[in-house]
């Protein structure tokens, strides 16, 4: 049945526009986003309206402002009808009764949202409109369509407007998101609309059940981001702040947050420096390397409190969001510690309402991603036998015996096995009127791929939020954790680790225990498995608690005070015992080390803030006075020479020699900070910040530093002239300029010290001291001045959104352990000298590439380029060749002799600068062309160790309940040494090495220098392009649909499989282009299965 209904169509359009405007008004009205409140509390809020004859929508928006609520209503409710209202400090409930009841509108409260709907009796009836011609009657309605509207997470959405398109007929979904509507025919179209979500339309066709998933409208959401000492609406932020959402954090089973950050944020380079169970060896670099020698690690703030512990001790499951402050303005609030960027970690908090119980768990296996191609026993034997210019008879009797018996050892296999990783998290959260809580407990257990490499973490997090009175709130957020690192992994990279251990040796005694000396003729070589039989108990206990009291002053609206206190306590206890079964224990007749360290951190922050809107002017002022005290105390006692192994670590009284050692430091910080955020009409934004930091570690003449910054923002999309540029949803231009510091100095570093050097009189030890460090009274912070210009954008209703930043930073007063002439008795001193600069560009884009009702493909790409250079070193414009620092070049420049291949013909040797060389020897590039090779003059720049480009690219495909995530990260423009190219076997071939294509007179096609101890006399190192793209994670998840969930009375069930480090694409021929030590524990490849469910 075809109908022509031109007028209602127009009307519909008109109404739609009105609704959008309404929505905007509502959103602006809800800017001061409220905390969750229970229904009764909401309905008791006071309302003052003295007005008459105004439109319903205006009344509602007034109420929204006063009561801090949001109204949600469908198009059926005539919001333009005029009403008379008068309320003088009346309860909201009373006001609503008065204005809604006569109009047959009922309401329901969901948290801060109030849903208005037509009263039951009229629910599916036609709402007459004077301008509308009624074309259908009840009799025309032929069929009923019903279904559930959910939010994509399986949660039913109540109050969604379901309208029959081109009519005014409609209904709302109930508390569970269910609806039912009568439609005239198959050609009917249902339109689903809901505040904060993108509208959906659906042809009815033959269907009688239509379930709809509404997607969040990211523009409408008006995200709030944590910016340090408070939060801000994303649209008001002037600095470069990047967020990692809870969604992204929960998407992959990570052991620590550094793994979650890798490839997730433009301008952030997270490097996995080594393999191993704990996976804690990561370095994080924000916008390039400022410092030459000082730390380049960003400051971590956890629930407002500076965190000094290991990144692997933060349980990622308890994290709500992570924000990274990248530019001078955003980071300036942290002054002397900000120049390496700031990472803000926010813990999950409880929410009012239903009790939520969730379980997350996974189990995975780990295997070696890439093994070195080591020689087998036989190959090693031949290698040693054929090696030229080594001592004769180098093959020792035991090696020969092992070889003859065919019992060569594959040390690498013995030192590795399949690892596992599993984690279980149980959390309960919820809340009542006055108290909300979150309680989470996690157990993590990793058995690494190196034998005996283990890491276990037990953590529990109680978080509490108590609203004592309307103006007084107390918050508490705590993590108790216990890390168990007991057990010593097999040795990989030591002098005789599994990677280099001679295979012609004996791994085990007849009784199955590892041999003390695998190679009897060499007592220095021990046994790579020796460590695994050492007894080692290594436990650390950490409490991190952030507690605050917030007072909203009743007498001055917008003024609040917050006292934020933090305590961090870490106790590490280690007891290691090397018994007679290990080389160390055998030589020393037992060696016991007892280690106990306590680290504490106390922070107190007084934050006064004032936030107020005056018409179109919006002002937010934050003032801070804080102090922090950090101390550390370590006691260690090593005893050797015991009667036997029985009492292990508990026999220090019987030791022949006791060597105590201790460490202690205290460092204090006092700071004042002021920040002003001003915005006009949400279009023009200004942020001014200054921080003054005093730090005890600075030299006596430079205790305080001041760090100011300014930032401007312009929300272009909010300008009138952009109204007609439909495809632009959001466009903001921002710029910042400011000074940040890098505290860099540690306690007592500016003081001269002496080191203990004993001597003897007969058997009596005489304590002696020698100068070990020069003092520097002027030692201070490094300062970075940086400028950022950025553009945040969103197009096509934010289907494509992202940001582009261009920055430039100059770092001065670089803390350099400058090489000085050792004539002074020292070869280095720490000074604030030198300058570096970083320029870069970074881009992050999130896009919905393809979307139907059941299939969706989204991408997230971030890419950044950084150019780093040394501007000056010692103020004289000269390079520091000894350190390999060159003006105009990046900090991490590789400088040395250049490999020019190998000599393959005598004529080549004769014509070269190495006339005495032999065939198959390494050819060194004669850089200065003086016909001889000099280890100083022929050095040249061979590459750079920091990448030019860092990127991360993730794609998520969802189809109904399935989702597939593919994540790739990588680096470009980076050079790395490949030590596997070296023989490195010592003069008499004591160590194994990788198999190579050694040149020899019988293998003239060989590409590697010959098997000759003198083939690489100049010790040329080999460097390769270490750019790579890694298929880091692939994760496939399935989530049960909400209908089944409802039946099961569960809120969420998700199962997933994840593969990590599946493939690496690189030209680098070492083990892995990312890890630092190619001979250490290798990187692992993982496969994980996981399950999440919620009650």
């Amino acid at each position, binding site marked *: 049945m075809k109908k022509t209904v031109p007028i209602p169509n127009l009307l519909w359009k008109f109404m739609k526009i009105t609704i959008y405007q309404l929505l905007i008004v509502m959103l602006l009205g809800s800017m001061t986003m409220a905390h969750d409140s229970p229904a009764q509390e909401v309905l008791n809020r006071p309302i003052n309206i003295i007005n008459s004859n105004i439109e319903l929508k205006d009344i509602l928006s007034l109420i929204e402002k006063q009561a801090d609520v949001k109204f949600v209503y469908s198009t059926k409710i005539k919001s333009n009808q005029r009403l008379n209202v008068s309320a003088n400090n009346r309860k909201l409930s009373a006001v609503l009764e008065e204005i809604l009841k006569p109009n047959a509108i009922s309401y329901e409260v969901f948290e801060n949202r109030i849903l208005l709907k037509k009263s039951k009796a009229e629910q599916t009836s036609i709402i007459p409109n004077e301008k509308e011609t009624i074309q259908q009657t009840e009799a025309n309605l032929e069929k009923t369509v019903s279904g559930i509207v959910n939010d994509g997470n399986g949660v039913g959405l109540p109050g969604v407007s379901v309208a029959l398109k081109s009519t005014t007929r409609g209904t709302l979904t109930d508390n569970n998101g269910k609806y039912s509507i009568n439609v005239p025919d198959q050609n009917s179209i249902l339109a689903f609309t809901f505040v904060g979500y993108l509208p959906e339309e659906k042809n009815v066709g033959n269907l009688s059940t239509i379930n709809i998933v509404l997607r969040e409208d990211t523009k409408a959401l008006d995200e709030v981001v944590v910016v340090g000492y408070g939060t801000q609406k994303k649209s008001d932020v002037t600095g470069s702040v990047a967020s990692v959402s809870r969604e992204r954090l929960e998407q992959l089973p990570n052991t620590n947050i550094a793994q979650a950050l890798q490839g997730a944020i433009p301008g952030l380079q997270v490097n996995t420096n080594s393999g191993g169970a704990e996976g804690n060896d990561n370095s994080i670099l924000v916008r390039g390397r400022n410092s030459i020698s000082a730390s380049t690690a960003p400051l971590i703030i956890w629930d407002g409190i500076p965190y000094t512990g290991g990144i692997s001790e933060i349980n990622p499951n308890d994290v709500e969001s992570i924000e990274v402050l990248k530019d001078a303005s955003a980071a300036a609030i942290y002054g002397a510690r900000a120049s390496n960027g700031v990472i803000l970690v926010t813990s999950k908090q409880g929410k009012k309402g239903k009790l939520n119980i969730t379980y997350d768990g996974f189990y995975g296996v780990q295997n070696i991603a890439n093994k070195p191609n080591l020689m087998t026993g036989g190959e090693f034997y031949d290698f040693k036998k054929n090696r030229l210019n080594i001592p004769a*008879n180098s093959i020792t009797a035991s090696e020969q015996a092992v070889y003859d018996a065919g019992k060569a050892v594959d040390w690498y296999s013995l030192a590795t096995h399949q690892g596992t990783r599993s984690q279980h998290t149980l959390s309960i959260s919820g809340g009542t009127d006055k108290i909300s809580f979150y309680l989470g407990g996690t157990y993590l257990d990793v058995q690494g791929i190196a034998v005996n490499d283990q890491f276990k973490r037990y953590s529990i997090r109680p978080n509490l939020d108590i609203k004592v009175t309307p103006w007084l709130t107390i918050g508490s957020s705590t993590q108790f954790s216990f890390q168990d690192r007991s057990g010593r992994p097999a040795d990989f990279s030591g002098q005789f680790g599994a990677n280099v251990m001679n295979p012609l040796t004996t791994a085990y005694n007849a009784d199955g225990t590892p041999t003390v000396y695998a190679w009897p003729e060499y007592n220095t070589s021990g046994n790579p498995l020796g460590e695994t039989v050492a007894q080692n108990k290594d436990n650390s206990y950490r409490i991190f608690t952030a507690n605050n009291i917030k007072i909203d002053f009743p007498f001055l609206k917008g003024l609040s005070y917050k006292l934020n206190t933090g305590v961090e306590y870490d106790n590490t206890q280690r007891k290691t015992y090397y018994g007679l079964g290990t080389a160390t224990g055998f030589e020393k007749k037992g060696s016991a080390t007892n280690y106990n360290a306590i680290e504490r951190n106390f922070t107190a922050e007084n934050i006064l803030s004032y936030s107020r809107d005056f018409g179109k002017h919006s002002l937010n002022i934050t003032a801070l006075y804080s102090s922090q005290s950090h101390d550390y105390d370590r006691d260690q006692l090593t005893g050797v020479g015991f009667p036997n192994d029985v009492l292990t670590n508990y026999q220090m009284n019987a030791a022949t020699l006791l060597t105590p050692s201790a460490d202690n430091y205290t460092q204090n910080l006092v700071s004042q900070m002021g920040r002003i955020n001003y915005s006009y009409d949400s279009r023009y934004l200004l942020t001014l910040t200054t921080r003054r930091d005093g730090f005890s570690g600075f030299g006596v003449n430079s205790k305080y530093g001041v760090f100011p910054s300014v930032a401007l923002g312009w929300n272009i999309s909010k300008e009138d002239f952009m109204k007609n540029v439909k495809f632009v949803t959001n466009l903001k231009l921002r710029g910042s300029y400011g000074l940040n510091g890098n505290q860099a100095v540690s306690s007592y570093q500016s003081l001269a010290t002496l080191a203990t050097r004993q001597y003897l009189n007969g058997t009596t030890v005489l304590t002696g*001291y020698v100068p070990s460090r020069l003092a520097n009274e002027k030692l201070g912070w490094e300062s970075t001045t940086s400028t950022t210009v950025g553009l945040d954008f969103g197009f096509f209703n934010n289907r494509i959104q992202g940001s582009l930043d261009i920055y430039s930073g100059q770092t001065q007063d670089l803390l350099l352990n400058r090489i000085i*002439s050792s004539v*002074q*008795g020292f070869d280095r001193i720490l000074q604030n000298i030198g300058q570096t600069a970083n320029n870069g560009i970074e881009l992050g884009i999130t896009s919905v590439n393809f979307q139907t009702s059941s299939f969706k493909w989204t991408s997230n790409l971030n890419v950044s380029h950084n150019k780093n250079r040394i501007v000056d070193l010692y103020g004289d414009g000269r390079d520091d060749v000894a350190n390999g620092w060159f003006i105009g070049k990046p900090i991490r420049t590789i400088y040395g002799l250049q490999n020019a291949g190998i000599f393959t013909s005598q004529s080549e040797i004769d014509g070269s600068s190495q006339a005495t060389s032999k065939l198959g020897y390494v050819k060194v590039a004669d850089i200065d062309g003086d016909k001889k090779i000099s280890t100083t003059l022929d050095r040249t720049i061979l590459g750079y160790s920091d990448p030019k480009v860092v990127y991360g690219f993730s794609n998520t495909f969802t189809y109904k309940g399935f989702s597939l995530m593919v994540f790739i990260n990588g680096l470009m423009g980076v050079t790395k040494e490949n030590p596997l190219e070296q023989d490195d076997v010592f003069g008499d071939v004591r160590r194994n090495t990788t198999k190579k294509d050694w040149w020899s007179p019988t293998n003239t096609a060989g590409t590697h220098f010959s098997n000759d101890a003198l083939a690489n006399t100049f010790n040329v190192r080999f460097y390769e392009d270490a750019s790579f793209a890694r298929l880091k994670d692939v994760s496939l998840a399935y989530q049960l649909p909400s209908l089944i969930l409802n039946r099961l009375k569960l809120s969420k069930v998700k199962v997933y499989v994840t593969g990590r480090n599946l493939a690496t694409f690189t030209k680098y021929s070492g083990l892995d282009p990312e890890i630092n030590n190619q001979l250490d524990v290798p990187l692992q490849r993982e496969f994980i299965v996981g399950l999440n469910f919620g009650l």
Partner: protein
Amino acid sequence: MKNTLTIFILTFIISFAFTGCKEDFLEESPVNIIAPENLYVNKSGFETGLYGLYNLVRRERGGIDGGPTTNTSNDMYITPAFVGVDNAFSPFPAGNQQPERVFNAFGVTLNPAVPYISNVWQWLYQTINAANTIVDRAENPAIKWTETEKKQIVGEAKLVRAWAYRHLTFMFGDVPLNLTESKGSSIKTDWERSPIATVRKVMEEDLLYAEANIAELASNAARFPKAVATHYLAELYLTIGDNTKAKQKAQSLISNANYKLVTARYGVNKANPGTPFTDMFLDGNSNRSEGNTEALWVLQNEYLSAGGENCIMRRWWVNRYERISVGGKTPITFSIENGGRGLGRFGITKYALSVYGPTDDRGGDFAWRYSYTMNNAASLPTGAKLGDVVKLSTTGNEPVTNSTTAQSWPSIRKWDWAPSLASDLQQSSNYNDLIYLRLADTYLLLAEAQFKLGELADAATTINVLRNRAKATPITAAQVNLDFILDERSRELVTEEHRRYTLLRTKTWFDRTKKYNINASTVIALRDTIMPIPQTVIDANLTKLMPQNPGF
């Protein structure tokens, strides 16, 4: 009520927020760091400074591997003073850049960038700065001590300073003269190399000061007695050609009643076969307190004792006898009797073996390892039994580096030692006390001075004192010449004296090394007489070019 509360809270906040912390909140008062300011305040503080200095001195015979701040058991600090000379070389050099390889191979391996060169330089200047710190800070009038106590301490510090400059001048020639404590506020980038004569002038002053002010006999075995200053003065005067003063100094020490040559059997091994000469080197005999009247200063070592570790004389000088191959077997293994485990990094040349007369104790079986007794039941050749003797060859040339026969070359027994722990015969370090300087050396300095002054008969008399003690045939005045004196020094002091310095002092290093050291003869050049200045030192001298030694 509500207002009262508000006011209360506000007052609390304001007082909290703006009163701030105490002034000293940012002052540092470390409890675990020793600084010059809190150490050098009294006599005992200065003494700990001195013991730190002696620790640096004893590192001469310890390891350098890993740089000057790490004590290790590899790469002996003082390598070039021992090998790369007429009487010693390295049979088993390690690696590419290890010092014993550098001073075997010379040529390109001896270059300004080789880590050994900068490590040894830094160690010596570190010692000088530590001495300067004591000398400078002793002038603080607030210290309560007697003038004698002060001069004793300053004297020892100056003696060690002169000792360090002695090494530096012999190794590098002209070197920068640093005589004040280094301060962070005054870093110099324009050091100049002072002429060697200037440096030696300072050494003379320091030694004279020490001789005048330090005790005749040290208060404990760690410290230098006055005799050390006198001995080095004699050597210094010989070096600069003031032979009269050299003779006078050497004579004054020889006539000192506190010291006399060991001429009779004594001590721990007295009841067993042996010689007076070799008795001195036995564990338990080397110290003055143990009856060694000849020792001027003895290096203190102690097993498992801080400050007594990482002396590697034995590890370096004892050969790799466990590799000696007889009939395809290795019948000799580590034992205390065999002197512990050696790496044969250092060894003597054919020349050094050839200088002894048949009756000379110093060339006899108690001084040298000419044979080993089979003691490895696990690897006996066919027909052999435990206790069979394997004689080493002494007739041929010294072995080629790392050759198949290198382990079968005789080695000196002066440094033999192994712990009595069966579990640890292979210990890296010596833990017995080792003679560092003895009166026999002073006798030979005297003979050299007498020879230079033309007093040949006196020189012969002086030399014969040593020869008689060792049962060698006495010599006549006519036999005295420089070569004979140098041969006699090798006979008496081989592997003890800093041979390179002796040869440099007598300007014979190049010729004698070329003549007697078969390995080095083909590779040394005149430039190798002094070592290159470390490249790092040249690079760090930013505002003034520091000239390199010629040829490097």
